[in-house]
């Protein structure tokens, strides 16, 4: 692992991008690493495009500023590709993990991974008020694509945060995403 990896999540308010960043950081801390997770907290509301950030490092992290040049970008909603410049600031050779069946038209020197997170969430019953909740699914894909944290650590965090049946569905969905994520 690089000394410091910076990750940006794109989602819509209510999809769980902030929680995804928090779970990722918590998992890294449980692995003995150093980590940070924070939202870009604006006047956000359900459905509006949002971003959240995480830093993971083998050394203590001193900075508390926002991330401008991420190593990894995770996009939770396939419709965002038309609305937001998701590769903005992404380092050359950086990784993009998309909730999409096929490459959503990303060009440039990036490694792009696709996973049908919406489909998995629907099949595994991760639906709240009619909305598929894809955050843990995307973490499964991120784990497989980058090895940044293990699926076991993610599962441990999910189990500590949610009631047993909810945790189980999330962990199942996460594993299924890890199996089906592919370069695209």
């Amino acid at each position, binding site marked *: 692992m690089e000394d410091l990896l910076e990750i940006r999540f794109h989602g819509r308010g209510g999809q769980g991008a902030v929680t995804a960043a928090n779970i990722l950081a*918590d998992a890294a*801390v449980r692995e003995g690493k150093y980590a940070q997770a924070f939202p870009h907290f604006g006047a956000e509301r359900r459905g509006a495009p949002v971003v959240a950030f995480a830093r993971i490092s083998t050394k203590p992290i*001193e900075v508390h500023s926002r991330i*401008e040049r991420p190593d990894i970008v995770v996009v939770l909603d396939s419709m965002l590709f038309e609305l937001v410049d998701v590769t903005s600031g992404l380092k050359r050779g950086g990784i993009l993990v998309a909730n999409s069946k096929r490459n959503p038209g990303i060009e440039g020197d990036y490694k792009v991974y696709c996973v049908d997170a919406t489909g998995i969430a629907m099949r595994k019953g991760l639906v709240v008020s009619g909305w598929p909740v894809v955050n843990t699914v995307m973490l499964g894909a991120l784990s497989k694509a980058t090895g940044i944290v293990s699926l076991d650590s993610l599962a441990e965090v999910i189990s500590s945060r949610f009631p047993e049946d909810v945790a189980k569905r999330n962990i199942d969905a996460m594993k299924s995403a890890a199996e089906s994520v592919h370069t695209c």
Partner: protein
Amino acid sequence: MERSMLRVKQKRVALNSNHAVAYAVRDVDVDVIAAYPITPQTTIMEKLSEMVANGEIDAELIHVESEHSALSAVVGASAAGARVFTATSSQGLELMHEVLHIASGMRLPIVMAVPTRALSAPISIWNDYSDLMNTRDTSWITLIASTAQEVYDSIIQAYMVAEDPRVLLPVMVAYDGFLMSHTYEPLNIPEDPTAIRELVPRRDRITLDIDKPVTMGTITDPRWYYEIKYQQVKAMQNASLVLKETSKTLHEVLGRKYEPVEGYKMDDAEVAILTYGGLFGTVQEAVDIIRDKGLDIGAIRLRQWRPFPSEELTHLMHDIDTIIVIDRAISYGASIQGPVALEVYPIAARMGVHVFSVIAGIGQRTVLEKDIMGIVNKVLDYLDQGVIPLRSIYWGVRGGE
């Protein structure tokens, strides 16, 4: 403490600074909590409400109708002898303002967390230190933390200091709203809060008691008012000593050491950057980069804002010739407009050190390492020209000079 303290067993967890506050409040065993929701403070109260509801804390939690009422409620509870807690930000702290003076004048050991936020108008929910700096003359001891770990430790220390019979003043623990309040990071907290409770034994003080009636905060005519206020001056002086003693105890028990001002690479520094809160981490990173380019630069973090650590700062500034103070608040119309820069000025003047006041990060305008490097370059240009401006440098603002 007479007996030597044993290091307690701790566990490593990921928390944001607001939740770190809630865990510290739980561990000191408070009796009464009152607060009113305001961004970015709200998640402290959400966590405390959860802890009270599930029995982790045995406390009265009062949902009040405003921040003025929140502080008034804990003033009453503290006067009756309870250990109390409240928290707020921004406009909430402004609405508390008159009660801030009452709390300190009545010598009540109240502890308050302040995740800092910009002030209206226009409305900004984002971070700067305008709210905190407006409380400068309220006679509250004020600590500014830089990490979630320090936030947890500072809340514990706040009770140790506030309740010390030599002090009996309220304490604010401030830190960056959002940039820290909502940032998850690793910290160590004790596995068993018993050790923390031993640090804050229940001590006698004068309280409202029907068997021994007293009146507090009564009208005081010109023959005595000044003496009462002078006692607050002395209490604030005593607080410096008690902060030092309690820092030593915390170091023994928790293994973490805090100074009123902390130096970073100051040994051979000629130029120093002084700041506070979460921004210090970014300044440290920038210092490393600038040092690689050959400038002997260091950094100073102000942790203890009130009482201001003049002696310790003098000591740290001994070998420098220039200090750059980065403030995230504006004292409008002042000679130099950075509140902390103003405080550093008299110390620097005695030592013949040049002071540059820089304003940055207002309303959470992003400040990165490259901004710190830009600020240092600008200061070096002034020094080359032999000019020390008697005003602040406004960094990163459109249309600024």
